[in-house]
């Protein structure tokens, strides 16, 4: 792991390169272009940038309309507003109409920090995951932002990409493989596997180090695409390790943990533990303090790992 960078910073730059390469790319923002970094695109392509003002519902409608003329609109605002404030617009106009809109939301998760609970989106993955036609991607680092965005633009249909505010450690590389719907194994191990998404990938790698020093070998899998979930990798890993942990900067209700539990409960019963925000709102504080208080650090993963390993020892895995 070397260097840290926020996924939104990477987004701003990738957007400009995409703008140069593909004249069909247009960007719509709702008065937060400096924070989402779409202002870089706006400066370079003013005629292809639309600021709707503080109007997220209109943001999604305008993006849908742009897509219907053959353009590829990328709609950006904070995750809490993109998915919550404009949920009906995303559902009825974009997802139901299968519009070719890419929603790239920044400020996902609790590490938004000092702005507090009103701005900390810990339910966006759940809200987007439930929509037919919608794909849900959470890049783990700056490299993955570029790959995710390019992949999203290459396919037709709505995609939700969740980015964060604070710098995150680099955990992938420029040339590592990225495919929507294919999870990446970052570390091998057969005692248990940690399925992580977004900033929790780096926490999981740290946790795996700690566990290794205590004699437990855990696999770490980067589940950048939450929908469609990589069923094959999840099931194969479940069968091989017999114990899984999910780690996400999101409510344990409806996110990656739920997606994995839905799959395991019908296909393969193994010991499962979920690390995430426990059905509660956040509060103001520094990202680090919040991660600690709300239980989403490497330490929390280690603790959960021990719990799950215990279950694995006493229970019995049943796989079809």
């Amino acid at each position, binding site marked *: 792991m070397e260097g840290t960078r926020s996924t939104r910073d990477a987004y701003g730059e990738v957007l400009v390169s995409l703008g140069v390469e593909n004249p069909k790319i*247009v960007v719509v923002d709702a008065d937060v272009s400096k924070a989402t970094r779409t202002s870089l695109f706006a400066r370079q392509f003013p*005629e*292809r940038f*639309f600021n*709707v*003002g503080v*109007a997220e*519902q*209109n943001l*999604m*409608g*305008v*993006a*849908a*309309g*742009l*897509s*219907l*003329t*053959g*353009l590829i*609109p990328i709609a950006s605002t904070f995750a809490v507003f993109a998915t919550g404030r404009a949920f*009906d*617009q995303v*559902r*009825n*106009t974009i997802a*139901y*109409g*299968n519009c070719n809109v890419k929603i790239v939301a920044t400020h996902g998760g609790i590490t938004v920090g000092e702005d507090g609970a009103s701005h900390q989106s810990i339910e966006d993955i759940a809200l987007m995951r439930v929509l037919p036609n919608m794909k849900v991607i959470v890049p783990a680092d700056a490299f993955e932002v570029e790959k995710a965005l390019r992949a999203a633009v290459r396919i037709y249909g709505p995609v939700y990409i969740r980015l964060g505010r604070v710098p995150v450690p680099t955990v992938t590389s420029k040339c590592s493989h990225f495919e929507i719907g294919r999870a990446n194994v970052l570390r091998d191990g057969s005692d248990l596997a940690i399925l992580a998404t977004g900033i929790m990938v780096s926490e999981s790698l740290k946790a795996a180090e700690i566990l290794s020093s205590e004699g437990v070998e855990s696999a770490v899998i980067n589940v950048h695409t939450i929908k469609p979930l990589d069923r094959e990798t999840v099931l194969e890993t479940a069968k091989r390790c017999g114990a899984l942990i999910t780690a996400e900067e999101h409510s344990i209700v409806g996110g990656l943990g739920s997606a994995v539990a839905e799959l395991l409960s019908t296909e393969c019963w193994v010991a499962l533990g979920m690390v995430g925000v426990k059905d509660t709102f956040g509060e103001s504080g520094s990202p680090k303090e919040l991660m600690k208080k709300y239980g989403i650090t490497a330490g929390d993963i280690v603790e959960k790992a021990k719990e799950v390993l215990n279950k694995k020892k006493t229970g019995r895995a049943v796989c079809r």
Partner: protein
Amino acid sequence: MAKELLKLIREKATQIRKLVLVMTTVAGSGHPGGALSSADIVATLYFWFLRHNPDDPNWMKRDRFILSKGHSAPVLYAALALCGYFSPNELLTLRRIDSRLQGHPSSIKTPGVEVSTGSLGQGLSVACGIAAGLRLCNSDSRVCVLLGDGELDEGQVWEAALFASHYSLSNLIAIVDFNGFQVDGKLCEVMNISPLVLKWKSFGWKVLEIDGHNIGQIVRGLKKASMYRRGPFVIIAKTVKGKGVSFLENNNDYHGKPLNESQLKAALIELGGEIYWKERDLLEMLTERCSLV
């Protein structure tokens, strides 16, 4: 304006009204009231104003029409069928399982439907996006969106109204079907929207008030709107809910309820004019369908 053209549009509007009533009665549900109030507007759009090609619904150069008041879907389906997007017989499948004609418009199912609507207040935003996109692509296609007056309660309509004037979308024409009723009653009682003209003006729109049942006025209004180059244009069309059938006019009971069979017969007789299906065939089909329910 040639008299023949006005006559043709009037005939089409009558046919549309009849088809709306027939298909909602056959379906056993739907929203005839607001569909009838917009029949003259929709007929003028599809049989005169809009550049479109039923043989190629995705023709690049077409004008776009968005029915923001999606519950009036039957009026759109009737117009599309009469234009040839699909067979009028298909109208009898409205709201049935496996039908392409959903209770509210679905762009992925129905040829000629541009945007999925039904959740009110969203059509103007989408129209804005289409208008901005077309302008960016140097297209001279125009975008028309039909709004209900009740749906103007939705805040998103006014977000979109701001956007349209801020970006001077002169290829965008909004039409308000101002029939004065929303689901729970009169606008002035449920949620007062007046002064409507001043509201649109203050949002930077050019406004024109017309009688939404006078084809000549609709035609002239659309001409003015398409020639106006300085920004978005809204036509506020004063209409009568249930227009064309005496016992439906200004009767809000039929906002979301179809006629029964005997009411339908009376309504069809009152509307007169050419009917698309021969009366006997129609009644046979109707009886057959009703016995299926």
